[in-house]
Each structure stands twice: as structure tokens, then as C-alpha cells.
């Protein structure tokens, strides 16, 4: 089992509903976020392109945050999901420095926090909160080992890319382009 997410940049309008839904689902304090939206513009008027991406922890196969964690708080569970155990976390911030995606932040309660792929929902057969609310239906989630999962089907039929492949982290959030 390997959970992954694919996000269709051709459909995303950058509304940031994924950000608010994550906040209300996971009680992320206002002022912080586990996911965010990036817009990049290329070209000059009127030859222009925009890519809009909803970004979050990439739940990497080769996760630098897990390797550098001195207490084992950052760990990987079934399905390849990277989690932070807030009890074991001493808030040193090594993982924040190590992450090439800037996906982690210091929670006001003193530990590091980030996207969990909403594993508490996934275990119940639901999609992560961000995926489930997206008005453009531009996010697909599921098990890469299952060829019939939404994410497998999306990756089988579309061109895609990952962020910072040069970092060698083997990220598991894919962008359909």
C-alpha cells in the first residue's frame, strides 16, 4: 500500500478551500497552515501561462525529515504516510530545516506540525479533507498499488511532475500538467 495524491493544475483555480478545510478539519490554529497555494506566472503580456498548485507535505519515500529527527518523532506509518508524534517531538526544528518543501511549521503548542494526509479520515475510507471539499475536483487521492484508485487512474492517463525531484526525496504528491 502506498498513499499518494495527484493535483490537476489545469483545473485548480487557487481558491484555497483546501487550506480552510484543513484548518477546520484538523483544528490548525488560524495563522498557521498545513497546506497552501502557489501561483507561478510565466511569459509576458499577452503570451502568458499560470500554474496554480495546492502544496503540502509530499510524504516522501526518502524523507529527510524522518532521517534527521533526533527523537524518532517524525516517522512513517503504513501506506508511506509521514507523521509527527507530538509527544516525542521536542520542537528542535531540524526537520523544518531539512524539508525541501517547507511543509512543516512550529505549532504554538511547542511541537512541529504538518499534513497527515488526513490519515484519520483515510482509515475510515474517506478522502483527506482538502480532497473532499475541492470545488474544482482537482485532487485525487488513493493507493498507488491499486490500479483502480483515483490517483492511479489520474497518473496513468495524464502527464505529471513532482516538486524538487533533484532533492532525491521521492515525493508522493504529483502535479498533473
Amino acid at each position, binding site marked *: 500500500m502506498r498513499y499518494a495524491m495527484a493535483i490537476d493544475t*489545469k*483545473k485548480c*483555480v*487557487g*481558491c*484555497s*478551500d483546501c*487550506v*480552510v*478545510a484543513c*484548518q*477546520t*478539519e*484538523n*483544528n*490548525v*490554529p*488560524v*495563522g498557521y*497552515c498545513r497546506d497552501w497555494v502557489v501561483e507561478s*506566472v510565466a*511569459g*509576458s*503580456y*499577452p503570451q*502568458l*501561462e*499560470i500554474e*496554480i498548485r495546492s502544496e503540502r507535505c509530499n510524504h516522501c519515500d526518502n524523507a529527510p525529515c524522518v532521517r534527521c529527527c533526533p527523537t524518532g518523532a517524525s516517522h512513517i506509518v503504513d501506506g508511506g504516510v509521514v*507523521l*509527527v*508524534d*507530538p*509527544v516525542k517531538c521536542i520542537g528542535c526544528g531540524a526537520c523544518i530545516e531539512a524539508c525541501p518543501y517547507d511543509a512543516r511549521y512550529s*505549532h*504554538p*503548542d511547542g511541537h512541529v506540525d504538518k499534513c*497527515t494526509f488526513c490519515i*484519520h479520515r483515510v482509515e475510515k475510507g474517506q478522502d483527506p479533507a482538502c480532497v*473532499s*471539499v*475541492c*470545488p*474544482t*475536483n*482537482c485532487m485525487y487521492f488513493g493507493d498507488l498499488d491499486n490500479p483502480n484508485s483515483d490517483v492511479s487512474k489520474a497518473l496513468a492517463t495524464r502527464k505529471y511532475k513532482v516538486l524538487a525531484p533533484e532533492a532525491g526525496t521521492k515525493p508522493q504528491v504529483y502535479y498533473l500538467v
Partner: protein
Amino acid sequence: MKKTRRDFIKISAVGSGGLALGLSTIKIANASDGENGLFKSSHARPVLQNRYPTYCEVCFWKCAAWTYTDDNGEIVKIIGNDEDPHCEGRLCPRGTGGVGMYHDEDRLKKPLIRVEKDGKQEFREASWEEALDLVAGKLNKLKEEHGAESLALFSHGSGGKMMSHLVKAFGTTSIAAPSFAQCRGPREVGFAATFGETVLSPERTDIRDTRCLVLIGSHIGENMHNGQVQEMSDAIDKGATIITVDPRFSTAASKSQYWLPIKPATDMALLLAWIHVIIYEGLYDKDYIEKYAYGLDQLKQHVKNMTPEWAYGITTIEPDVIRKTAHEMAAASPAVIIHPGRHVTWYGDDTQRSRAIAILNALLGSWGRRGGFYNPEKVNLPDYPSPGYPKPKRTWKDAFPGQYKLVDEVLSTGICYSSIPNPDMEFNIKAWMVYGTNLLASLPEQEKTIEAIQNLDFLVVIDTMPMEITGYADVILPECTYLERYDILRASPHREPYLALRMPAVKPKYDSKPNWWIAKELGSRLGLEDYFKWENIEEYLDWQLKKVGSSLEEMKKIGIKKFPREYEDLYALNGEDFEFNTNTGKIELYSTELASEGFDPLPKYTHHREPDPGYYRLNYGRAPMHTFSRTANNPNLTDLMDENNVWVNPKVASIWGLKNDQYVYLKNQDGVVTSFPVKIRITERIRWDSVYMVHGFGHADKKLTRAYGKGASDSEMITNVKIDPVMGGTGMRENFVTFITELEKKEDRS
């Protein structure tokens, strides 16, 4: 005439009784809820306990949803109702962030009454009893002295229905919503003149099944009109062609196969050239036009010289692009939508531009066809029994003799103008009730709005938040948010008729009350008890629901209920006989109605004013995370976007030496300067002859602790208004701004 001097009072002047209770954070969740089952945190994930049906009130799309509460009975999240065609279970960021409206500690908390103390005006807290008695006393006096007709109601949102019922029973029909004259009015009148029917809300656009969607200035995806955003996304998946006409590279433009970066204010020329190509190349739906339309010959003659080459000189869009896009539309016909837009009050000839859009749709046979415009139905809910309304002796139209005969709705600016004493006017408005609309931001020409307010005998405002308009009120009545109240049922037109229920998930916070209670209480004080014979709104709703075969009990469980269509005519115009509600009984390409009122029966291109050197046309629009100016203080949504910025092309930035994120003031063609500075955003996404900003920022009320002084108000810059002669709409896109880069104007951003 008595003049009421009305100082703007900032509600922060209220005494300590108005202290915020603070944002109620979610309490400690039970131990088993931590990520690893052990962790206790003040920010643990909430334990969901109950859910209550609602429909969203953050915008007019009104998506049905569930409000979830935790084990402390506190609201934690709002999730779309899967059965609702408005949202398909997926709310937009504002709907998801609607929790912030409830949690906002800056809300209005107690009724407030304007008093004078030591020569200074301020608000004093009052009981509901006292405040309602005062309002009723003032209204009764008004009725005696000037007649009930001299009261006007401005309203926006679901609660407006109850307030309308109250004022109609009182004896006035001057009930206006800025959503007509400042927004969608021209398209309704333009489409009605063509098809005998309006576009409605939600729009009857069949985007789901379209093969070609043409957007003219409409920025779907930045406006989160949820159903349309979802259907456009669907259409992208299915490979539909999208053509976007916009001087700005909007999000929609970036999703389009064709982006036409048109010179601002020249859309009419493009539309006429498209019509020319469609007619002269014989691309129109001949059977459809023959059977259903009137006036093809006159139209053909009219657009004879309006070639793509002619339009090129006006619009800067190359002739072959005009032709190619016309061919795309024709290839998709009838599954093509030239979108009517929503906020279409631009240049004062907006009804005529909407007519051109309607005509183009007619030529392509998209009205009443799959993938074009469907024929919606809604549930006809009976009104709770009540006496007939008194017939007013005068109406707002008496202030404008001979004008606006084609207008069915009330012009908010018309009410505003007729509130300013004028010896030539037959009729004057003397008092306003303002429900849920911040008129200082929603009407253009702030100076006139303020002049009207200063001349009123009485102004009562009902709202959830302190907004600029509340600062001018004599009495403020604090309403509870939509998450804390019942409201009227949502019965909106759609492919299939649905009803949606809104019920409270929690008790009203502070000393706030729902609109129905306020209306009923005022009614009983005005001797209108007979109009409010229900004990409470549960009884009212249950009565209505039982009449259509449901009940309040059932709706509480399901939130939304689908009803069968009465007629099987979702797509009615595939050769069936049909009589349109126009003079000729046909689709009027040539409008006999406009002709009889002395207006152009066929749309013409008019040249609009261009910016002077050093000035740039002010375009404005929406961001997906905000609605009008009403969400600017919402903690969840300000977290996403807490101020607007002004978009400028890099060429313009280099002329002015502007830097990204630099603060400037804007000054318009009439010398008006923004109250607050606004950040510069240098981007290739905007033409060099215009600037763009998101509407709804630059709030001047200090009580809005998150919104105060953040960004600039586009409304402040809109002092030049082009009135649409057909329907009185206020064209707002002939305003031009320049930059004041030295912040010599004293900053007041405390």
C-alpha cells in the same frame, strides 16, 4: 425641513459592556483523539458530535451544508450537503470558512442607540425592548407625517424576505437590493427583452454539458459561484473549448484555449463582429431562427459593416482570432454558452451589451438547449396566510416620472437619489431600514449616499457586523449569524426543484436575534400582528413544508429535498412550438419593446471615455476567498487574504518607479484619494492601460479589528457613474486612477 446631522460613529466608542468574549477555541479533546492516541493539546482535532442542516449565507449561491458541532456544543466545521446541486457536497473557501462569521469577536453584540452626550454623538447599549420600541415609534411617526411610502428597505440575503414582508405590511414597496442596479440588472432586462425571460440566480447556464463556454469579463474561479466553478471544471475535463475575453489574464483566461486580451470598454464591438461572422458566413442555427426568432433581416442589415476588420481597430483583437473563435462557437452550437455574466454594470450601455450577448446565443440556438441554457424549475411554496398588503399611494418610480418603464425591480440608487431633497421631485424617501448590506461599499458615489443619509429622519440598520453603514445608524439591531438561526426555506430555480432548510446549530451568541424575530416583534409594535400570526418560525416553516408534502421534522434530518419537475421541458426548444413572453411571441433579435420605449432596438457600439495620460482604468473584481466587503473581517478568510493590492503592468511600474509590495495611495479622475494606502502588485497579468483590484477592502470602521485600514476601497474611487438609460444601472468602469507614491498623506493605521 428638519435636517438630521448624522456623525459617523465608530462603534469602538461603546463602553466596556461591548467587550469581546474572545474567540472560543476548541477545548481539550478526549485522549483517544490525538494522532498517536496519547497526546493532549489545546489544538487537538475536534470530536464531532452533532450536525445541523443549513445553507450558506456567505454569498448568494446559498449552498446547502451541514454545520458540525463538537462535544462542547461548539461549531467546528461546515461541510457541503452531498445532495445539493448548488454544491454537490463541496463548499467554496468562504462556505468552509463561514465558521469565522460566527466566531468573529468583532460582531455586533447588543442593540445600540445613537445619543448625544456632551455635544458628542455616540452609541449607547440598549435592551431589545427599548430599541424596538424606539424603531416602532419612529416608524409610526413617519407614517403619520409623510405616509408609509416614505420608508425604504435596502436588503441583501435570505433575511430580506422577512423584512420585506414587514415593510410591505407597513405600506411601502420601496424595497431595493444593490444586486440589481449595481450588478445583474442589465442582463436581466437585456435577456428579458430578447427571450421574454431572465437569467435568474443560480444562472440557468448548462455549463456541465457545454462544448464551448465564452466568458466576457466573467472571472469564474475568482468569483466562486460554486455550481458554475464546479461545472466549468467538469467541462475542462470533458474537453470543452473555453474562450475568455478579458483585459486581465484572469484565472479563467489561464484555463482557456483562447484568451482575447481586449482593450477595455470595447466588448460591444467584438460581440457585433462575432454576430457579423455568424450571420454572413451562414453559421447560425437556421431552423431554430426561422421557427423561434423575429428580426433577422434587420439585424443582418444592422451588422453589415461590423466586420472583424472593423472590430480590430477598436478592440485590438486580430480579425482571424475573431473569426476563429466565432467558428469554434458555431461548431459547438447549440451546446455553446456566451455567458451573460453577473456583475455587468460597466459603461452605462450594459443592457445593450447584454442584448448583444443574448442575440449571439439566440443565433447559435443555445437558449433552451442542452449545453446552452436550460429551463429551470423551483418549488412554489405557498405564503403563510396573512392579510393582503395595503396598496401604496406612491412608489419609488414617482420620483422618476416617465423613466424606467422596463424595470421590474427597485433601483437602490433610485431610492438613494430620491432621499436627497429636490424641489423637482414629486416624492421623497424619509427613512431607511438597511438589512445586511453595507451601502457605503455596495453603492457607488459615496458622497451621494452620505448626503442621502444626512437628510433622513431615521435610519435603522440590522446586521451581524459593525460596517460603515452601521456608523451612520440611529438604531442598530444586531442579528445573529446564519449558523445560529432559522431562515426562510431556500427554493431556488435549478434543473430540478429543491428545498433547503437552514436551522441553528447553536444558540445566538451575545444578545443577537434572528431576522424573523425582529420582524415579528416590530410587526406587533406597529399594529401589524395579523401579518405575523405564527408563534415562531418553526411553525411558519412546518406549515409551508406540509403544504408541499414534507415537514420540518423531515427537513431537519435531510437538509435538502428534491421535488419532481412539473414539466418535462428542461431543454424545450428542439423544434417544439413555443410562445415567448415578448411582444411578437418570438425571440426578439430586433427588440420591439426597446423600440417602443425609444431605445435602440438593435445594440450599437459606443466609444467610451479613455484614461488621460498618467491615469489607468480601474477594473475591480473578486478573490475566491472573499464576498463583497462582508467577509473582510472573517478570521478564517483574512488568514488567507487580509488586504487587497493593486495590479500594475511592469511597463507602468517602471514608468512610476514602483516596487512590489510598495504602498501607494490611489487618486481618481475627480481628485478623490483612497483613505488608506494599498500595496502594489507588479504582474504581467494586467494590461498597461488599466489596473485591477479586488473589491471589498479598505474598511474605515476601527471596530473591524482585522479589516480596518487594510487595503483600499475601490468603491471610494467610483465617483463617475454612467447611468444605463434603459434600466437605471450604475456603470462603474469609467473611473481612472493614478498613483500617489509619496505617502505624504498622513497614515492612520493604528
